[in-house]
C-alpha cells in the first residue's frame, strides 16, 4: 500500500457485492479498523424496483453486507443518503436525459456522494480515509497522488472516478485495485464470505426496475416522435428520444435499407432522432465541459490560466479501449480534443476521461458537450 500515512479507522463503502466485501476484509487483515457503511440512496419500498433485479442498495444487499461485516468482524451501518443522492445524482440524470443526452450517474455518485459526503460524515466519527471496492489504484509519487487504472483491465473502474479531487486521493484506498476479479472471488470463497459467488451488478442501481419505466415516470421524453434524416426527411416513428444514444446502430426501427443507419443526434426541442450513415457520425474533435484534472501537474498547469496542449488517450464510454487525442486547454479552462488517428463515437453527456499515453493513469476528465450539427437549431 502506498498510503503509509493512513492508520486506524477507515470507512469502507459496502454495496453488498463481492468486491467491497473483499476490500473490507483486506483492510481488516492489514490492521486497519474498517467501519462498513452501506449507502441507502434509494427507497425501494417507496419508489419500486424491489424485485430481484435490483443490483445494489436493496434490503437484500444490505443483508448481504451485514453478513459479510459480521463474518469478518467489523462494525456495519446503513447511512441514509437519499436526499443528496436525489439532488446530486437522480435529478441530474433526469435532467441530462431531458436535454437529449446520455447521462453517467455513477460518476456523480462517486464524486459527489461517495467520496465527498460519505467522507465528511465518516470524519465525524474518526474515520480519516474512505475505501471502496473499485478496481482502481492510487500511487504516491513525489509530485503527489496519482489515480491509476485497476490491474484487471477488464474490470477497471477508474473511468468512473475521474471526478475525485487530488487531495481526496491521499485519503482514499482501493484495496482490490491490484487484484484481478478471479483473485477477488477466490479470496472471498476461501474466507467463506456469503457474497463470494454473487453475480456482477450491471444496471444503474436506481433504475433496476427498468429504465423505460423510470423515464416515463420522471420525464416527458418517452412520447413518440419522428426519426428523420439529416435533411429532415421522416423515416419512422420513435417511442421516446431517451431510448436512443448517439452512435447507436441496433434497434432504431428503420428497416429495409442498404446501408445501416446510426443515431447522429438527438434533438429534445423537436423530439426528433436524427439518423444517417456511419460517415455522418464521424467527427474530428469534441469539447469537454465540467473538467476535473486529477493529475497534480496538469491541475497545477490549468490553474495558471495559460493555454497548453498535450497528447493523451481518451476513453469516451465504459469499456471503451480509448483512442489517441490531442488535448488543448484554453486560457479560459475550456477543453477540446481532436482525434489523432481513428475517430470514435462521441455520445454527449457521457464522460470523457483522459489517460496518459500508456493508457494507465487518469489525468482528468469531464462531460462530452452536445454539438448541434444536424438539428434545426444547427441549420438555422
Amino acid at each position, binding site marked *: 500500500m502506498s498510503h503509509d500515512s493512513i492508520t486506524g*479507522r477507515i470507512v469502507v463503502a459496502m454495496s453488498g457485492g463481492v468486491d467491497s466485501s473483499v476490500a473490507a476484509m483486506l483492510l481488516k487483515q492489514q490492521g486497519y479498523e474498517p*467501519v462498513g457503511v452501506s449507502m*441507502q440512496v434509494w427507497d425501494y419500498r417507496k419508489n419500486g424496483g424491489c424485485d430481484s433485479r435490483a443490483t445494489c442498495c436493496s*434490503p437484500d444487499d*444490505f443483508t448481504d453486507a*451485514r453478513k459479510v461485516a459480521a463474518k469478518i468482524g467489523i*462494525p456495519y*451501518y*446503513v*447511512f*441514509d443518503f437519499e436526499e443528496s443522492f436525489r439532488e446530486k445524482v437522480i435529478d441530474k440524470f433526469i435532467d441530462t436525459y431531458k436535454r437529449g443526452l446520455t447521462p453517467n450517474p455513477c460518476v456523480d455518485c462517486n464524486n459527489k456522494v461517495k467520496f465527498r459526503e460519505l467522507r465528511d*460524515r465518516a*470524519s*465525524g*466519527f*474518526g474515520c480519516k480515509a474512505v475505501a471502496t471496492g473499485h478496481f482502481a489504484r492510487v500511487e504516491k509519487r513525489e509530485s503527489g497522488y496519482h489515480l491509476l487504472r485497476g490491474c484487471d483491465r477488464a474490470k477497471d473502474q477508474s473511468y468512473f472516478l475521474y471526478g475525485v479531487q487530488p487531495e481526496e486521493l491521499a485519503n482514499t484506498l482501493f484495496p482490490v485495485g491490484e487484484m484481478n476479479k478471479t483473485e477477488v472471488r477466490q479470496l472471498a470463497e476461501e474466507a467463506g464470505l456469503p457474497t463470494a459467488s454473487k453475480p456482477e451488478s450491471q444496471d444503474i442501481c436506481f433504475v433496476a426496475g427498468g429504465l423505460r419505466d423510470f423515464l416515463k415516470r420522471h420525464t416527458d421524453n418517452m412520447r413518440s416522435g419522428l426519426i428523420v434524416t439529416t435533411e429532415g426527411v421522416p423515416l419512422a416513428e420513435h417511442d421516446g428520444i431517451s431510448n436512443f444514444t448517439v452512435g447507436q446502430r441496433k434497434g432504431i426501427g428503420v428497416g429495409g435499407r442498404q446501408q445501416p443507419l446510426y443515431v447522429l443526434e438527438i434533438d429534445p426541442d423537436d423530439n426528433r432522432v436524427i439518423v444517417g450513415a456511419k460517415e455522418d457520425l464521424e467527427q474530428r474533435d469534441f469539447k469537454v465541459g465540467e473538467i476535473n484534472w486529477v493529475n497534480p501537474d496538469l491541475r497545477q498547469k490549468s490553474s495558471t490560466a495559460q493555454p497548453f496542449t498535450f497528447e493523451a488517450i481518451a476513453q469516451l464510454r465504459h469499456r471503451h479501449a480509448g483512442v489517441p487525442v490531442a488535448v488543448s486547454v484554453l486560457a479560459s479552462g475550456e477543453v477540446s480534443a481532436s482525434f489523432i488517428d481513428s475517430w470514435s463515437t462521441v455520445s454527449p453527456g457521457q464522460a470523457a476521461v483522459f489517460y496518459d499515453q500508456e493508457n494507465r493513469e487518469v489525468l482528468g476528465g469531464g462531460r462530452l458537450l452536445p454539438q448541434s450539427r444536424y438539428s434545426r437549431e444547427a441549420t438555422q
Partner: protein
Amino acid sequence: MNSVYLDANASYGSLEEILSELTPWYNKLFNPNAIHSVGQEVMAAIESSREALAELSGCSLRDFRIVFNSGATEANNTAFNLCFERGGATFEKGTPTRQSDYQIVTSAIEHPSVLALVDHLHLKCGINSKLVFPDGASRFTAESFLRHISDSTRIVSLMFANNETGEILPVAEIAREIKTRYPNVLIHCDAVQGLGKVKQDFSALGVDMLSFSGHKLGGFPGVGALILKRGIECVPFIRGGSQESRWRAGTQNSPGILSFGLACKYVRENLDARIEGMEQRKSRFIELLGEMVPGVEFNLFGEKQIPNTLNLRLPGLSAADLLVALDLERVYASAGSACSSGKPLAAEALVASGLLPEQAKSSLRFSWRADEPMENFEYATRVIKQIVAQMGGIHGEAEQNHVA
C-alpha cells in the same frame, strides 16, 4: 472494554436474577395444552406467570383476563381488531355494518404499532381516525380527547408513557372523563413503558384493555400480553386452536411466558429499589451532561416522566451520525425507530410531541436499566463530549419557543 447499555426502552435485557429459575425448564418445555402431567406442569408455570403479571400490574384475574401473545404489537393489534370485527365486543345486533361509520381516537404520540395500524384500518376498511396532539403546556387533557370523540367512536387508545421522551400521560383522568360521557367507548392503553418503572396500579387507570411487553421489563423478547376487562367478548386476532381460552391460537411461547412471569415477580419484589436506581441515574446523567456538554438541550415533555429515559438534543448535529459514533465507542443508544433496512428515521413521536423536524433529527434517546453501573454515565458523557468536539461542536439553534 467498557460498554454502556443505554437502550433499555428498546429491550431491557433479560434479568440475570431470573436465569437460575429458568434453566431447569430448558428440557421440560412440553406442550402446555396436553393432557399429560409433563404438559400440565408447563401450564401450571404459565398460570403462575399470569398471576405474577396480574400482581405487578394490579389487574387481578378476577376482574381482568390476561392473554399471553407474541408481544405488545400483537396486543395492540388484537385490541383494535376486536373493536371492528363483526361479532366483536362493540357490534351490538342491528348496528350499522359500514365500518366507515366508526372512528378511532388516539394520541398523536403513540407507538408505530398503533399509528401504522390505525393507518391500515383506514386504508383497508375506511375507518376514520383522529389524532390528538398535545395542547401547548397543558399537553394531553380529557378535554383535548373529548373534542374528537363522538358516538361513532369505537375505541380510544392512549399510551401510559411515551417510549421516546418518557412523558407520562394522565391516562386515569382522561379515561374517567371519557367513560362519564361515552360509557360504551372502549379505552385501550399501551402501557409497555410504564411497567416496572413507576408505582402504579394499572387497574386504577379505568381502561378496558392494556398492552404489556416481556422484554421491556426484563424477560425474553417475543412475549407480551393483552389484558382485558372481563366481559369483553372474545375475538381472537390469530385463529386456530383454542389456547389462551380461545383468545390466542397457537401453542404458547412457554419459555417467553415463564421469563415474563419471573421478571414480573422479581420486579414486584424490588420495585422501590428499581425505581430509585433509575431516578438516581437520571439525576446523575443530567448533572454530568450539564457540566460537560454545554449547549445540550433536554426534550422534556409533560408534568411527569418515567425515571429511566432521557431524550436530549445536540443542536446542529445529526442523530444518525451520533449514534454510529457512540456505537463505535461502545455506548449503545437510539433515536427513533429503525426500519427493516436499519435506516434510522427521525423520531416522529418527537415531532408530534412538539419538536421541529430539524430538532428531532438531532435528538437522541438514552434509556437505562436500574443497575447500569453509575460510572458508565461518566464514560458515556465523556464520549458524548468528545464526539461533539469531533463533529465540529454544537451549533446554536434558533429557539422558536415551541417546546413546552
